[in-house]
């Protein structure tokens, strides 16, 4: 296999701009919010809808609640340097320091997964790609690396989905959980807004809008429910392990779980976990062999 590296060194300049850009964006957001509020008040004050419009605007423009931590940034830079030099264990330690400080971000998990992959720890790489995917689900580098890591899992079991299931899954994977929550709430607000506007102005298109937003809201609520349910108990096999019929070492082996295989945790009995493979087969494995996403 021929291996190539993408050189992204040109991005290192932007690293130092990150905190300043964050502050600047917050200022711009506030300015735009105020400007739009004035405009909306001008248009809606007669009908008393300014408050509602402001509420929507605040949802559209959420302000940063967590400032970038300088310590975390230092760790991140050091870990990246270690990665570049091929010191993957050192890089892993650096990324873990950020997580241990109680912070997380998509790139931190992504880089950590890359470091684990380079360090031949396929299970840990996949679990961190999954974590990164929950924060930045549309990142193309992440998707490519995740697929590449999965292709290295020998004997991986995957449930074959029909067209509807594939569409539904890709819809759910397109958004992060937080994005789905925001969109769901926004859709509800839009449906409520259209309903009220329809009452006040009695227009057909507003009634159609109400139904449309309500339908989308229902779809997103169902999707959100499934997404949360799937993500809640998901785990990745860290080391290849046999799944047994009972939670003891002497029990008959039911099937083998390769490193990097995704499973769902169903229960716990002492040091054993009851897991379900994507094809529905259920077995018991030692808890240490599974890491929750």
């Amino acid at each position, binding site marked *: 296999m021929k291996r190539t590296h993408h050189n992204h060194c040109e991005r290192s300049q932007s690293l130092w701009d*990150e905190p300043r850009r964050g502050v600047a964006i917050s200022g711009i957001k506030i300015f735009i919010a105020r400007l739009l509020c004035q405009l909306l008040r001008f248009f809606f004050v007669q009908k008393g809808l300014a408050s509602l419009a402001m509420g929507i605007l605040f949802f559209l423009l*959420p302000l940063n609640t967590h400032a970038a931590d300088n310590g975390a940034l230092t760790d991140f830079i050091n870990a990246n340097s270690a990665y570049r030099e091929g010191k993957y264990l050192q890089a892993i330690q650096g990324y873990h320091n950020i997580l241990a400080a109680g912070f*997380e971000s998509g790139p931190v998990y992504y880089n950590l997964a890359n470091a684990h992959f380079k360090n031949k720890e396929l299970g840990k790489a996949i679990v961190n790609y999954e974590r990164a995917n929950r924060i930045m689900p549309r990142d193309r580098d992440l998707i490519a690396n995740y697929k590449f890591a999965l292709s290295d899992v020998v004997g991986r079991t995957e449930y074959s989905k029909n067209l509807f299931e594939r569409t539904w899954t890709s819809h759910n994977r397109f958004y992060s959980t937080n994005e789905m929550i925001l969109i769901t709430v926004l859709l509800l607000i839009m449906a409520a807004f259209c309903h009220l506007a329809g009452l006040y102005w009695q227009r057909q298109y507003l009634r159609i809008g109400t139904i449309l937003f309500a339908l989308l809201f229902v779809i997103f609520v169902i999707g959100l429910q499934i997404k949360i349910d799937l993500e809640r108990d998901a785990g990745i096999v860290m080391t290849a392990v046999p799944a047994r019929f009972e939670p003891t070492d002497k029990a008959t082996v039911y099937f083998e779980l390769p490193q990097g295989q995704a499973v769902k945790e169903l229960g716990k009995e002492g040091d054993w976990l009851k897991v379900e493979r994507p094809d529905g087969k259920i077995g018991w494995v030692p808890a240490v062999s599974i890491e929750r996403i």
Partner: protein
Amino acid sequence: MRNFLISLRTQGLLMGRGAQVSWVTRQSRIRLLRRSLCFFLIMIAVLILGIFPLRAEDISVEATVNATTVELGESIQLTLNITGADDVPAVQLPKVDGLETRFAETKTKIFLSGNKMLRSSGLVFTIIPLKTGQFEISALTIPIKGKDYTTKPITITVVNSGNTNSTQLESRGTSSSLQDKIFIVLGTSKKESYIGEPIPMVIKLFINDLNVQSVQYPTFSHDGFTVEDFTEPRRGQQTLGDITYQVMEFRTLLYPTRTGDLSLGPAKLGANILIKNSRRQGIPGEFNNIFSDDLFDNFIGRYETKTIMLESANLGLKILPLPQEGKPADFSGGVGKYNFDMTVSPSEIKVGDPLTVRMRIAGDGNLKAVNMPIIKDSKDFKVYDPKIVEQNGEKVLEQVIIPNHDKITQLPTTNFSFFDPVEKIYRTVTKGPFPLTVLPLAKGEEAKIVGMTSPSMSAEPVVTTPEELGRDIHFIKEAMGRLQKRGFVIYQSGWFVGMSVLAFLVWIGLFLNYEFRKKFTADTRLVRRWQAPRQAKNGLNQAAAFLAQNDVRNFYDTLYKTLQDYFANKCHLPSASITADIVAEHFKNHSRKEEFIDHLKVIFAECELVRFASIDISEEKMKTTLRLAEEIIDFSERNTK
């Protein structure tokens, strides 16, 4: 039909009650009668067709056997099917030395073929081989209705029993336990074979005097072998000792994949057997004897189904490696006996025109293991990827090749080599060379070959291969992105909850506002009643202003109008119609109404006096009147809804 119905109707035969029956009922009866007549006609047609004498060409006679190869000790069923004849003559099978024939039974079935009802009679014979060898049951001639019908001769091959574990059958045929009434035996045709050689394998289910249902296909351990699917199970009989067993055979082919002493089996087969339930529950004594009758038992079905799993003994096989001596360089991997054919068409073409090479390999070996000989790219020919299809027991290759120049005179020979396990030698079948006439291109004509860079036919063909891309993970991210608390979910944040609650409250407020306005717009009585005190307050303020200016006339005008409008709004009446009596009617249920009405009458009288008589009124009097008016409105607000 319509005329027939009309005539029936006219005669009063169709409907007994004639005109008393409604039109709808009449129509439904007509429809019913039509359907009945149609059904009657169809039945007559079927009967006519059924009894119509069959013509001679409708009669056919055919003899079939359920197997053409049988092991010594097994039996074969020969069925003579006579279709289309009512009277089936007595048929005697010809005597064959080495075969014993017995008539078993007659099976008759009637079926519809096109518009004819045909009868088919099947005469079933059991053939028991007495020795090994090849036997021919000659053609049978059967006279039916003065005409002779002849069947085709049938050849039967009887072979010795192959490789079975001898202990499997030794103890059978003597005991009467369940294990001896039903068991399975695993066997192969040989004990020793070469790697890749097809080995016929049979799993036989022996049943004696048992009702067996739901027989499943057997499974068996076959480490070191690839196995084909089982063929349809074959039924027959086999005698072991003194007992004749019903036998069900499951046949397949094995292909050894490694050498050495390999073990096959054990084979397992699941089935249900019906066992008579001897345990009886009920009232003991005379009454119970009534139900102890076998016939009654059979009638009500006092049987229970028992699922059993039969298991055979293991079978050892010695698998030999293919000899290296004499192994051709182009050995295809095929082990068995194969036929190889090859054709090339057309034989006369122009430069750049396609030639189609067809190869066909058939035989009794494992076709999946056979690598087809392929014509490779050369200076003479541009070669495309072959299309290889395996179907109906043969492997077919089709390959398109294109001559590059007109100097070509033939397509070279093609070899196909395989190992013959019977003769234990490698064989090579050679086809070709195939003579070709390749014509040059006309002047100005260009050959169009995919993959050629130059129209010059002497140029080397350029084969376009897909670009090979490297595979690895993408590089790390340089920017840390927006940090958030670990496990942060948006609904845990205060602003999200706050904004959600605010949005909900705004929606509730606006919705209530809308509902309030809607109600307000629709109920004018309510609107007037709600507006009355505010308007009255404005009117009194205005009157107070006139009082301050000592404008007596306007003071009393305003005061009168204010009181009139107030009570008009309260009583939902026109202002002009308001008098003290009407107001008294409005307050009739109140205890202090007399005093209240007296005050109102005083004010109204004073107002009219000033407005129409122009008398002088002191400022004190005006103040008293204004206070009185305020008290009246206040009293009204406190004591009316």
